[in-house]
């Protein structure tokens, strides 16, 4: 195995072109030696922000962030409590319980499928971290509380939606993901799926998202060319630079 030691510093400061960055990322996945070296470099790079002159963020920024999070996940406000040491313990358990629930861990005999799902979950998180663009779709009307984030990888254009808290629908119905052109004339069904009842559900998109300006999710009972069912969530998806 050929190491990538002479590229790790530039990798750590995000100064490698995409093709080299991906190559180094791939190497790091299999090379503990280079990973250890990168960790040492990263400790120095992590200190560099301290060299930036101090700036006071505008007071409104804190509430703006919290409001955006609240809007993207209305159920979160209800879940939030004043923190105490005990509360944190409960939160930790809640997080673990959420993961276990998402994995549908019901018996030891499911260990193999659980391992596979862990791998899939981890892959999704890796894909999320590598995505260059994202748009959040909040559930509306009867679908409030659910939502999904459309992620697009910059280099490949590969896209997927990571849904959360999807509402159950009739057995004969499907969630359809639509991509819509600027003029609203062209609707492309990019995915069709049934909710699996898990906390999070990934749905891959079979289209080049950058060619469209809106994304919507509807509930359909037919495979018509245009949606006829209710809109569960939607969002504008701006062109690059917006």
């Amino acid at each position, binding site marked *: 195995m050929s190491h990538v030691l002479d590229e790790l510093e530039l990798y750590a400061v995000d100064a490698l072109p995409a093709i080299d960055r991906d190559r180094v990322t791939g190497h790091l996945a299999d090379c503990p030696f280079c990973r250890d070296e990168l960790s040492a470099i990263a400790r120095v790079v992590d200190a560099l922000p301290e060299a930036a002159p101090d700036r006071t963020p505008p007071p409104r920024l804190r509430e703006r962030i919290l409001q955006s999070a609240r809007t993207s996940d209305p*159920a979160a406000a209800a879940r939030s409590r004043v923190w105490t040491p005990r509360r944190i313990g409960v*939160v930790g358990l809640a997080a673990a319980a959420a993961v276990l629930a998402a994995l549908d861990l019901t018996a030891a005999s499911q260990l193999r499928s659980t391992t596979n799902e862990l791998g899939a979950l981890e892959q999704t998180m890796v894909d999320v971290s590598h995505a260059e663009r994202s748009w959040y779709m909040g559930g509306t009307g009867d679908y409030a509380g659910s939502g999904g984030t459309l992620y697009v990888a910059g280099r490949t254009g590969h896209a997927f939606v990571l849904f959360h808290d999807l509402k159950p629908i009739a057995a004969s119905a499907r969630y359809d993901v639509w991509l819509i052109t600027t003029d609203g004339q062209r609707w492309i069904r990019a995915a069709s799926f049934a909710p699996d009842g898990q906390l999070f559900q990934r749905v891959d998109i079979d289209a080049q998202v950058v060619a469209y300006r809106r994304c919507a999710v509807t509930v359909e009972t037919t495979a018509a060319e245009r949606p006829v069912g209710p809109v569960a969530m939607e969002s504008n998806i701006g062109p690059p630079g917006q």
Partner: protein
Amino acid sequence: MSEPFDPPDEQVIAALAARDLNALAALYDRYGRIGYALAYRILGEPEGAEDVVHDAFLSAWRGAPGYRRDRGNVRGWLLSIVHHRAVDILRRKTAFRPAPLEAAAERPADADTAGDAMRNLEGAGVREALTALPVAQRKTIELAYFGGYTQVELAEIMGVPLGTVKGRMRIGLQKMRRALEAGMGAPGGGP
């Protein structure tokens, strides 16, 4: 009355993954200011810096379940999101690059509280380690990290081969590492 509680970063992230808005507020209270300073340093203007920090914290809110401690501490993870987004925006503005660190430093830092003074004290150690480097190494690090220049661009604007850029980066960061380890040490996570 509940006692004051200041949990470690990893517990904050666990709460974030459980969709607790108070955890998001706590994370912002810890790293919002330095995240904003970093974004401001890279972009050179307040509105863009605010948007970057907003997007970065929302990204952390959504991506908390995917956080892995073995890939770095929470502070580094969050600031790397800020850095990546700010540099991404900068690279799209092909006609503009920020001033070198000397020019940025000439703009006075904001007046602050005792807590912020502590951060300035910690930052002084990093700035000291950076300014102690030979000019070529320091400029290479600054232009790459704060200027968003790629290795090829660095070679072009500095008029040196690619191998020299890599060498300056490597030696410069190694020297900083030794200086920080000998002094205050690189910043870790939260309390």
